[in-house]
């Protein structure tokens, strides 16, 4: 069996514990003990915790199975869209991707020390780095989205002001 397969087997076997560790590490970025974010399972009562727990699983599977990047982008977007408006600096907002490295290193501590998988793990971590680059793009997109919304609001106010001044706007007219 080659080293790549061995690593993949480890990552598959320990999927649940790695994901749990990754999730808890992400939750550490929130103030307080984040018990609510960690424990409440209802997707509507706790959309932040629910979204993060669901999407990191998709991301993890994606890295393992090599799924299409658009699926990864959707999952990343769902998490980063939240963190882009929370009280985080840009680096803090996307830091959750790198926390997967720590989760894996902690869970595979014994195997790494035995020197079985170090080289393959470095390759896998490169994939995580690529995910982080995608995360940065998405973070920027979310922030641009916020500013676009603000600009659009200003434009809409101009339309309203025109209406008040008696200069009817045709913004809603059907094209003839």
């Amino acid at each position, binding site marked *: 069996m080659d080293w790549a397969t061995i690593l993949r087997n480890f990552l598959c076997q320990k999927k649940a514990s790695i994901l749990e560790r990754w999730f808890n*590490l992400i939750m*550490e*970025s*929130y*103030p*307080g003990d*984040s018990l*609510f*974010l960690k424990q*409440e399972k*209802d*997707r*509507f*009562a*706790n*959309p*932040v915790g629910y*979204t993060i727990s669901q999407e990191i699983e998709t991301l993890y599977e994606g890295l393992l199975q090599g799924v299409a990047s658009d699926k990864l982008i959707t999952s990343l977007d769902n998490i980063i*869209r*939240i963190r882009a*408006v*929370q*009280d985080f600096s840009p*680096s*803090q907002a996307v*830091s959750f991707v790198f*926390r997967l490295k720590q989760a894996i290193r902690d869970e595979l501590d014994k195997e790494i020390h035995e020197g079985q998988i170090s080289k393959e793990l470095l390759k896998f971590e490169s994939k995580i780095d690529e995910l982080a680059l995608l995360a940065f793009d998405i973070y920027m997109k979310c922030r641009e*989205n*916020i500013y676009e*919304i*603000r600009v*659009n*609001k*200003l434009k*809409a106010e101009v*339309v*309203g002001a025109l*209406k*008040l*001044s*008696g200069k*009817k706007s045709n913004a*809603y*007219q*059907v*094209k003839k």
Partner: protein
Amino acid sequence: MSAEALGPKEVLKTIDYKPVKRSWLELTVEFRKGTYLYTPPRKLLDYLGLPNPRKWLPSEKDWQLPENWRQIILEGMKDRLSKYRSFQLFLDICVRCGACADKCPFFIGSGDPKNMPVLRTELLRSVYRKYFTTSGKLFGKLAGARELTEDVVKEWFYYFYQCTECRRCSVFCVYGIDTCEITMMARELLNSLGCGVNWIVDPAAKCYRLGNHLGLPPHGFKGVIDTAIEDIREITGIKVEVSLNRKGAEVLFVVPSADYFASPHWFTFLGYLMLFHEIGLDYTFSTYASEGGNFGFFHSAELAKRLNAKMYAEAKRLKVKWILGGECGHMWRVLHQYMDTYNGPADFLEEPVSPITGTKFENAKSTKMVHICEFTADLIYHNKLKLEPSRNDRWKVTFHDSCNMTRAVGLFEEPRYIIKNVCNYFYEMPENTIKERTFCCGSGSGIGADEHLEVRLRGGFPRANAVKYVRERYGVNLLACICAIDKATLPPLLQYWVPGVEVAGVHELVGNALVMKGEKPRVTDLRFQPLKGEEGEGDV
């Protein structure tokens, strides 16, 4: 050290995954751009006769508080504790059970513990303990008491303007503590130091002067009405009659000013006018009571009362029998729960009776003011309207219960009844996100300013999350609501979280479906968008 002066190693040291763990009593607030509201210019405070006007910003270190600021706060607290029994009670009886903790949309969206209603209240309660309770005076921190410092004032400003007074927490409190009232008190105290918000004070000043938040004078209001009449004529071929300041009309109709200014409110406004024309309602607008909303309510009880006074005054001057009110949230909280005490009794008005159906609105016996959804639902129930719901077929609709309409007024069924009669496709969001448990838009109570968008997007996330669910499950593309602030702030919220879902008032949908006598064949809806089946080749 400035960021530019840092080397790579120092930069790495500044990256910390974990927030600093400190006692909640000690933390100071960082006012990062995008997370605080701008302050009003002194001329507005002067105009309204409000205290301590000055030029300042929350991000500045020195807030230029008046010299005796501590005395102002403590005397203000003492005054309110003696005046409002609920205030004293709410500060004393909380047992910190935590039932409210995870119910606040701002806590759910941010994860910041100080947005838990219980802890937000502790920010004020800790000061109350220190200066007004024996245990707090004797044992200080041990008894959960803390000194009133400038940092505490700053923290109040930060967190009490992250509460939208939506009152979702109060639904779950076993003692019935209404944290909204704590926020109201805290904001009154802040405003007594001149620490207010421009987005609240500016419309309040305009409203005080000209009767509406826009500052629109009577001739401007007339111009807007003319535009609406023209829009309706273009869509239906019918010229509706609208009267302004007409004495002796049966009904005075009051709407939030956003209805005749903003989008998508405008289409709801057209819907009202079409409906009244069709049923032949004898009504008038007042160019002074041209605002149902009341931003004074987000400032202080005193300012709310001043702005509210015009409503009964105009009803009296115009000698109407009763008042009908449009789609608005906080407007109805004020009318339903405060107006009678502020400026009543309205003994010069009659108990409202629908002139079309004869229905007596007994629930409005005291205030003499009826909600447009009650009025329209009653018309539909009595089969007084001819409706063609297929004109709304391009919409798959869900309904957002506005906080004030549900938790303050208890109006759940009427808007749903109307929607089900004027639309063919209606889908509810999950049970724990609607009716009494509805999630806030994240922008109510005067915090819907543009500069505050990030915080609003956080607070509105739980609502948007439920919309996203019905969007993915049923293909919902329209969020209907009956609140002017919702109509203004849900579109940006959805653009960020659930693109592809638009926002509309319930009476826009009524206007679309309403078959008017003598109308020309409709080819567009009230947004001038082609009706389903009427799309031309060039239309997208």
